[in-house]
């Protein structure tokens, strides 16, 4: 019983931490982007105020099916926070027994599904084009993370979160070829997972006017924005636990601080790439991802043979 309570408390602590840190990471991202662009940039805490402002606005029902629209907004934040419960954030995974890697993969896909629901609910032409792009990229993107996790699971000989999310991709005797291949694949596609330029294709403001989010405003938009910010933190955390585990075992607070330092380095990397690239076209992006999927299948085969 006591263990269950600790699990739940740990999960909630993670959720709280993500909610607290995500807008700050966004603030850092905006500030650094601004400096790259020779601008002053907004204050670091601006995203908090933005969210508060949006949350305080009138809740307008719009689009073709307002019910679904509301549901999609709630679900998007809920899904990503559920992921937060499962991912270790500097400690071991809090809800280790509550789910395994397969659940994690499903929850990550659910986040994408929310965007589809949002677009369908809006029913505008732009959002429909947006979700068709989102769907196309999901088909080639989702396998990448799934394969990375499965490679880890194969090496760890377990689907348990704690076992997999601790640099398991390198856990083989000799050179971990499959792990290194997946590292490269994930670095190349990371921008797409956190939906930033050059792969923010389904939202593309200058083409589709934010695509699926075109009908959102006020509190519901705030939830989507929050989920978007949280995604950056959670995917970074996942990346760090899976591929950059070194130093996590150190005593508190050194290990913990090191973990967050790595997460913020990753956020920086995302920022710099986003600031120095133009948006790709959907067909170019799909071709790029399809290539990566091919490569990651090679990694998967290597992993099954223990390399």
């Amino acid at each position, binding site marked *: 019983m006591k263990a269950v309570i600790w699990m739940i408390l740990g999960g909630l602590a993670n959720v709280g931490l993500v909610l607290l840190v995500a807008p700050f990471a966004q603030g850092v991202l905006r500030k650094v*982007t601004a400096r790259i662009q*020779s601008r002053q940039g907004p204050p670091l805490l601006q995203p908090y105020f933005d969210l508060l402002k949006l949350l305080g606005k009138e809740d307008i029902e719009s689009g073709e099916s307002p019910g679904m629209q509301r549901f999609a907004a709630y679900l998007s934040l809920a899904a990503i926070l559920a992921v937060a419960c499962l991912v270790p954030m500097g400690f071991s995974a809090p809800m280790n027994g509550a789910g395994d890697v397969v659940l994690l993969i499903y929850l990550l896909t659910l986040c994408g599904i929310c965007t589809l629901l949002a677009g369908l609910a809006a029913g505008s032409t*732009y959002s429909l084009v947006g979700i068709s792009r989102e769907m196309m990229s999901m088909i080639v993107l989702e396998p990448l993370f799934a394969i990375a996790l499965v490679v880890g699971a194969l090496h760890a000989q377990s689907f348990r979160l704690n076992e997999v999310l601790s640099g398991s991709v390198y856990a083989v005797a000799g050179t971990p070829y499959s792990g290194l291949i997946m590292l490269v694949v994930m670095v190349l596609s990371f921008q797409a997972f956190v939906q930033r*330029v050059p792969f923010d294709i389904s939202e593309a403001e200058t*083409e589709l*006017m934010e695509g699926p989010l075109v009908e959102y405003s006020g509190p519901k938009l705030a939830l989507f924005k929050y989920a978007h910010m949280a995604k950056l933190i959670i995917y970074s955390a996942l990346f760090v636990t899976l591929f950059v585990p070194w130093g996590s075992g150190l005593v508190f607070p050194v290990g913990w601080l090191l973990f967050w330092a790595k997460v913020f380095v990753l956020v920086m990397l995302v920022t710099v790439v986003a600031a120095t690239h133009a948006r790709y*076209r959907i*067909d170019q992006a799909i071709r790029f991802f399809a290539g990566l999927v091919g490569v990651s299948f090679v990694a998967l085969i290597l992993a099954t043979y223990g390399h």
Partner: protein
Amino acid sequence: MIAREMFEQFKQRFGPLIVRADLPSDNRLFVFVDPSSVRYVTQHIFRELDARYVATIGADDRPFSGKFLVAHNFAFDKEHLLCGILAYLPPDKPQIDSITDMVPAASWGEREMRDLVGIEPVGHRYLKRLVLPDGWPEGSHPLRKDTLWNEVPAQYDPEREFKFDEAPEGCMVIPFGPFHPTLDEPAHFRLFVEGEMVRGCEYRGFMVHRGIEKLAESVMNYNDIPMLAERICGICGCVHNVAYVQSVEEAAALKPPPRAEYIRTIMLELERLHSHLLWVGLACHIVGFDTLFMQSFRIREPIMWMAEKISGNRKTYALCVIGGVRWNITPELKLELRSVLDKLESEWRPVVAAVSHDKNIQKRTCGVGVADAGQVKSMGLIGPVARAAGVDIDCRRDHPYAAYDRVEFDVITEQGADVWSRLLVRAKEVFESIRIIRQCLDKMEDGPLQLEIKDELPIGRMGLSSVEAPRGESHHFVITGENNRPRRWRVRAPTYQNLQGIPAMIKDQQIADMTISLGSIDPCFSCTDRLETVDVRSGSVKVWSQEELLKLTRKKVEG
């Protein structure tokens, strides 16, 4: 001599078809022909003599000659000649054979002439309304002299909607506009889309008509109009200002003092600098590359400050009056302008070097929005769009005005005919502009800024002027008139021609490429939409009626 030689050639070829000819100068030729032979003459000029189509002008000349007047203007760029083919039409039922099937570029010109002056282009295959608001009654033509400038016909129906063409089978319709983040002004493209592929489009523009030409012809005077002309466009206003003044000066055979000509050149080039830097920024924003967007705006800003120091305004310089300019460039300003140019050049060079090797941008722009030399010829495309297709035209060199005949510069051309080539052309033209301004500053001689004009300007003379705007040739045509104002003033902005090339450019391309293709002509809808008196938004839910809005704004103005 060129005009005379060309006229001799015309005389041999057309003989009795020519009614009259004016040769006001070496590089201007006005040939009046019989209306029934306009088609034949233009065909010969366009096809065999390889002239470039410039503009079609319709005018109500009934109060003066009792007839309607139609002009098709052509340019012989290599021969440095601008030529008008004119015909008088009977007052009762004005109609003329359409030339659009031979010269596709004339399509809009003829439709506009039909809307506004009521001259029927016989044989035009697509006579849909172009300029007039949807609720405007048939048979009422605002540019006729018997229509008052502020007249709204009694049968005007603000509720009537525009009828769009049917979408082709299997295509979804995506409304691009009237308001869209990439369009900074209202314009409506109805895209027919199959999956992500654009199969065609229909354009409905002219939504912000301001009745500028009518206003000029009925209430303003010669020296008011430059200020009005400048407000045609928020980016290339000075171009219209100079082009109008030059066409009046040409009609009245006035020559501004040399210092004024240098100052005009400098201001025009300053405008090109800021416009090109703005365009590079916006184009990068369209493809999601915001860093270069911000950087090019930062690099551009000192130009705006410099313009403000010279003219008192960042934009709308209010530069010209008939026979001169209003602002001087003092030695201190000269010095400062030089240092601004040095800084600009040193900052822009690394940007161009970085961009021209950027694979990422090339991926989004190479082979996109292609308009080849054939399309340039048939649709009359101009400016960077033409030069990016290897068509070597530039009014600054081909039809020199102001002080351009006294400076040296290269006309930049590229061969790709795509968005990438247009980007390169504009990026490199920045250096040529800097070069031109430096030469002007060196060569500028002291002297008066304005010509003293004692007599009234002569009546019934024609003048035309082509000025190379940042987007292409801006063409103005003026017939001088009574009451110290022109009888007819026609503006053909560069976007007017380039926009007609868009449907071909975006056909069978992805939606993602549509925005950058459209962006690549540097569209300026306010330039194109300069004409009408009333504006109605079509097709959308109206919360405010037009009268209510008008009342509201008036109340606001009156306080």
